[in-house]
C-alpha cells in the first residue's frame, strides 16, 4: 500500500508534465489538424531559457517560469507564422514533414550553440522532503502538481470563458464558418500556438527543476509520449489531454515499480493501441458518424 501511494505521487508528478505538454498538442491538433512535432523541442527551449535566466540573470523560480512561458509563446507564434502558415492549404502530410523539419532545426540548432552535453539545472528551490504517513513527497513534486493544475484550470477558463477561447472553439469546429461570423482565423491560430507553447515552456522549467538535467535532445521522447497522451485522452479535447497525461505518467511509474522498466515504453504504446481499438477517438474524443 505504501509503495502504491508512493508510486501514485511519482506518477502524478510525471503525469502533470506530460499533461502540460499534451495540452499544446491537443489544442494545435484541434485547430489546424497538425501533429506539431516541434512541440517537444519548445519544451526543451523553455528548459534552456530557465537555465539561462536563473544562472545569468539570477531570476527566482516564479519569474523564470513566467519569462519562459512568454518566451516559448513568442517562439510558438514565430514558428507558426514562418513554417506552418504558408502550408495551411497544403496536404496535411506536408505540414507534418515541415513540423519534423522545425523539430530537427531546433534540436540541431541548440546542439550547435550549446553542444550536446547534459547540463545540470540550477536548483533555485531547495528540495525539502516531507514524510506523510510513510510517504515521501518533495516540495518540488507538490510544486509541479500545483502549477500544472493551476495552469490547466487557467487554460480551461480561457477556452470556456473568454472571447478568444470561444473563437478558438469556433475555428476548430469549422474555420470557414468562423471566418464568416467575423473571427480572424490567423489571430486565433497564433493565439492557440502561444497558449500551447506557454504550457510547454512551463513544463520545461518544471522538469528541469525535477530531474535536474537538461540537454538539447530532451524534448524528443517526452514530446512523443505527450502526443500519445493527447491521443489516448481524445485529441482535440482539453480535459482529455490532462487525463491522458496523468494516465501515461501513472502507467509509466507503475510499470517501473513492478520491475519491468525496460518495457515501460512498450506498455505505454500497447495501451495506446488497445485504447484506440476500443475507443477509436480516445477517451474524451467526439465520435463522428460517417455519412454516406
Amino acid at each position: 500500500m505504501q509503495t502504491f501511494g508512493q508510486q501514485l505521487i511519482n506518477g502524478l508528478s510525471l503525469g502533470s508534465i506530460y499533461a502540460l505538454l499534451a495540452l499544446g498538442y491537443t489544442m494545435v491538433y484541434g485547430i489546424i489538424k497538425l501533429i506539431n512535432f516541434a512541440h517537444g523541442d519548445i519544451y526543451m527551449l523553455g528548459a534552456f531559457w530557465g537555465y539561462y535566466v536563473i544562472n545569468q540573470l539570477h531570476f527566482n523560480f516564479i519569474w523564470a517560469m513566467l519569462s519562459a512561458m512568454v518566451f516559448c509563446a513568442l517562439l510558438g507564434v514565430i514558428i507558426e507564422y514562418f513554417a506552418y502558415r504558408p502550408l495551411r492549404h497544403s496536404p496535411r502530410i506536408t505540414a507534418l514533414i515541415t513540423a519534423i523539419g522545425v523539430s530537427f532545426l531546433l534540436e540541431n540548432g541548440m546542439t550547435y550553440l550549446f553542444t550536446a552535453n547534459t547540463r545540470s539545472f540550477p536548483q533555485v528551490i531547495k528540495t525539502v522532503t516531507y514524510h506523510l504517513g510513510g510517504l515521501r513527497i518533495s516540495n518540488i513534486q507538490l510544486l509541479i502538481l500545483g502549477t500544472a493544475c493551476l495552469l490547466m484550470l487557467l487554460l480551461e477558463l480561457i477556452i470556456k470563458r473568454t472571447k478568444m477561447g470561444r473563437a478558438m472553439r469556433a475555428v476548430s469546429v469549422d474555420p470557414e464558418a468562423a471566418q464568416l461570423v467575423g473571427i480572424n482565423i490567423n489571430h486565433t491560430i497564433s493565439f492557440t500556438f502561444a497558449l500551447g507553447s506557454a504550457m510547454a515552456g512551463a513544463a520545461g522549467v518544471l522538469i528541469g527543476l525535477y530531474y535536474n538535467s537538461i540537454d538539447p535532445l530532451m524534448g524528443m521522447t517526452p514530446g512523443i509520449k505527450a502526443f500519445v497522451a493527447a491521443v489516448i485522452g481524445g485529441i482535440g479535447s482539453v480535459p482529455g489531454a490532462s487525463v491522458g497525461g496523468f494516465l501515461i505518467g501513472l502507467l509509466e511509474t507503475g510499470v517501473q515499480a513492478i520491475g519491468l522498466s525496460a518495457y515501460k515504453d512498450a506498455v505505454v504504446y500497447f495501451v495506446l493501441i488497445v485504447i484506440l481499438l476500443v475507443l477509436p477517438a480516445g477517451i474524451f474524443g467526439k465520435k463522428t458518424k460517417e455519412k454516406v
Partner: protein
Amino acid sequence: MKANFKYNISWLAVMVIGFVAIDACEFLGIINTFIENMLVTIGINIILATGLNLIIGFSGQFSLGHAGFMAIGAYATGIMTQTIATPLGFYLSMVIGIVIAMIAALIVGIPTLRLRGDYLAIATMGAAEIIRILINNLKITNGAAGLFNIPPLVTWATVYVLMCLTTIVTVNFIHSRNGRAIMSVREDEIAAEAMGINPTRWKLAAFVFGAATAAIGGSLHAAYIQTIAPGDFNIMASIAILIIVVLGGVGSITGTFVAAIVLGALDTILQNFGTLRMIIYSLALILIMIFKPSGLLGNWELSFKHLGIHQRKEQSIHE
C-alpha cells in the same frame, strides 16, 4: 503483366544500362569507397521508401512504423548469417525476414487498419516501437548493444539488383488489377466497397507488401553496414523514410527515386560542414516543403507508356 511486357523490358534495359554505367565508373576509379557507400545507402533507401510509398501514396494509409519491419529484416539477417555465413544463408535469412515481417504486418495491420489518418500513424508508430523494445530486451538479438561482425555478404551490385527487382515488382503490382483496387480504396473507401472491393483486405495487402520491402531493405542494411543496434530502427528512422516519400511526392515512384538520390547526395556533400550539417539539412527540408508542398515531383511519374502515348497523339495531330 503481359500488357505491360514492353514497358517492363524497356525499364529492364534502362536498369542494365545503369548497372553497366556504375560498373564502368567503378572500374575507371570514378567511384571510390566513399561514393559507393553513398550509392548503396541511396539504393537501400529507395527500396524502403518505395514500399512506404505504396502504403502512403497508393493505398492512402498513413504508416509511421516502417522502421519496425526494417528491423525485423535486419535482425533476421544479422542472426542467421552469423551461423550460415554464405550468400545462400544471406538470401535464406532475407526470405525468413520477409516472412516474419509479413506476419508481423498482419498482426499489426488487422486491428489497426480500421483506424484512420493520424490515429493509424500513431498506432503503427507504437507497434514499431514495441518491436524495437522487444528486440532491445531479447537475448538472441544481443539487447541494446546490437549485433556486430555480421558477414559482409552484400556488395553494391546485390543492392542494385534487389532495388531494381523490388521496384519492378512494386510498379507492376500498382498497375495490376489489385493495384487499381488499392488506389480505389484510397480515393473513396465507400465507393470502392460499393463496387465489390473489400477495403480492409486491400489496405492490408498494401501494408503487408510494404512491410516485405522494408524487410528486404533491412536485410541489405544489416549485411552491408555489418553492425546493427535497436537504436537504428527508432521513430527517427521511420521518419527518415517518410521524409523521402513526401519530399519526392506522395504517390510517385519516380519522385521517391529522385528524393532518395537528392537527399543521399545532400547528406554526402554536407559531411564537409560538420556540425552545421543537420541545421542546413533541416532548413532545406522546411524550405522545400514550403515552396514545393506536393513534393519535388508531385504525383508525376516517368513512364514509357505515357511518353509513347504522347508521341502517338502528336503524330496523329500532325497527320
